[in-house]
């Protein structure tokens, strides 16, 4: 008879009826002898039952209508620019060890709500192709309409900030290179898509990039993948005090 350590990883799938007949028979034979594993199966079933009993707050018909209208506008090419958030694809579903930043969804929303003010994001005629100057280590333009772009390093750390900008930009270039592949890449899946492949001119894609300095690891990118307008490495956290 198999021991508990061998059987334990199968118990959840056994409770769900997801085991093949051979595995299932082995579990049944073990459970007849083992009270502790029988309890684990009961725990799994009970937890599933509780999870299933959760009732999500309902959505009013008017809200579905509002979203449906927004989707139609997008289909007709009249949609507002999007602010897309992403991670590099290698990190998909993985947590990042670095504390990440200060991107307030309210501000993201305000960016969505004010597309008319975003002329700074329009394509710079001097930047023809991404290969000519795919990114810039410069701080964002002072007139940038997004308040998230106004985050700055403290003045007394200006020199350190520029070093970090340079390092961040180098890391950014690498990640942008990776990001031109779908961010939600699944090996062998040709249907993978991601924010970079979906971005259109006027959209803003916010990517997190881990640099050697955890204070500088957000990149903002405006434009589409074929014609990068600008990328900024933005300091993400003010120094304490």
């Amino acid at each position, binding site marked *: 008879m198999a021991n508990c350590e061998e059987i334990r990883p199968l118990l959840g799938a056994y409770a769900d009826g997801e085991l093949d007949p051979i595995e299932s028979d082995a579990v049944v034979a073990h459970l007849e002898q083992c009270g502790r594993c029988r309890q684990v199966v009961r725990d*799994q079933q009970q*937890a599933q039952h509780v999870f299933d*009993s959760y009732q*999500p*707050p309902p959505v009013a018909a008017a809200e579905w209508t509002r979203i449906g209208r927004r*989707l*139609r506008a997008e289909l007709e090419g009249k949609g507002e620019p999007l602010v897309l958030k992403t991670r590099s694809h290698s990190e998909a579903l993985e947590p990042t060890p670095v504390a990440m930043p*200060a991107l307030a969804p309210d501000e993201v929303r305000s960016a969505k709500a004010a597309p008319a003010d975003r002329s700074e994001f329009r394509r710079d005629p001097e930047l023809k192709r991404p290969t000519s100057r795919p990114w810039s280590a410069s701080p964002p333009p002072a007139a940038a309409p997004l308040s998230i772009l106004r985050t700055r390093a403290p003045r007394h750390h200006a020199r350190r900030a520029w070093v970090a900008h340079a390092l961040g930009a180098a890391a950014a270039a690498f990640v942008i290179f990776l990001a031109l592949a779908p961010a*939600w890449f699944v090996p062998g899946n040709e249907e993978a898509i991601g*924010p970079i492949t979906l971005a259109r001119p006027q959209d803003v894609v916010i990517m997190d990039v881990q640099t050697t300095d955890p204070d500088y690891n957000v990149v903002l990118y405006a434009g589409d993948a074929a014609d990068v307008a600008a990328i900024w490495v933005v300091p993400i956290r003010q120094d304490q005090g």
Partner: protein
Amino acid sequence: MVGGQRQSGDADRAQEREAQREADLVERLRGGDARALDELFRRHREAAYGIALRLVGRRDDALDVVQESFIHVMRGVHAFRGQSSFRTWLYRIVTHAALDYRRWRALRTADSLNGESAPDPGPDPNQRSPQDEASDRDLQAAIEKALANISEKNRAALVLFAIEGLSYKEIADVLGISVGTVMSRIFNARQRLKELLASEIG
């Protein structure tokens, strides 16, 4: 016995018709048909919302995620070749969009706490409707809180299994992981849920 076979055959045929209908809708969406978009949205919005809500924890955020996911669908539909079912593809988009969204939200919370470790963002009690408040409110709140404290990878697997009844194989396709990993993530998610809700469910 014969009756059972006939029923099973009918169910298969109904399933095939349904798959064909969905494939037609996707094809029409690819051609820019607004009615096909409406139909796909109507069919899948509740499921997308259910997944997003359990991953981001807030109702309004979940609706944002649903909207963003369907925009991704429209923009990416040219890349969809029917290798997986439309719903598997959609759920993959919703899951990733929700986890991205949740992460930004959590980071914002971390920043507002000046870098202290941030708790998972729990659902906003103000967003709950009166109907929900009436129905065993304490357990519902406890479940919401517990869900927020299960790791996002484990939670994503459990949510996909529980909400839409995806098989382990389908969940593996959605998340891009092996069936064995799906097995352990769902197992771990439920063990954790049981621990967190020990006082409520005994």
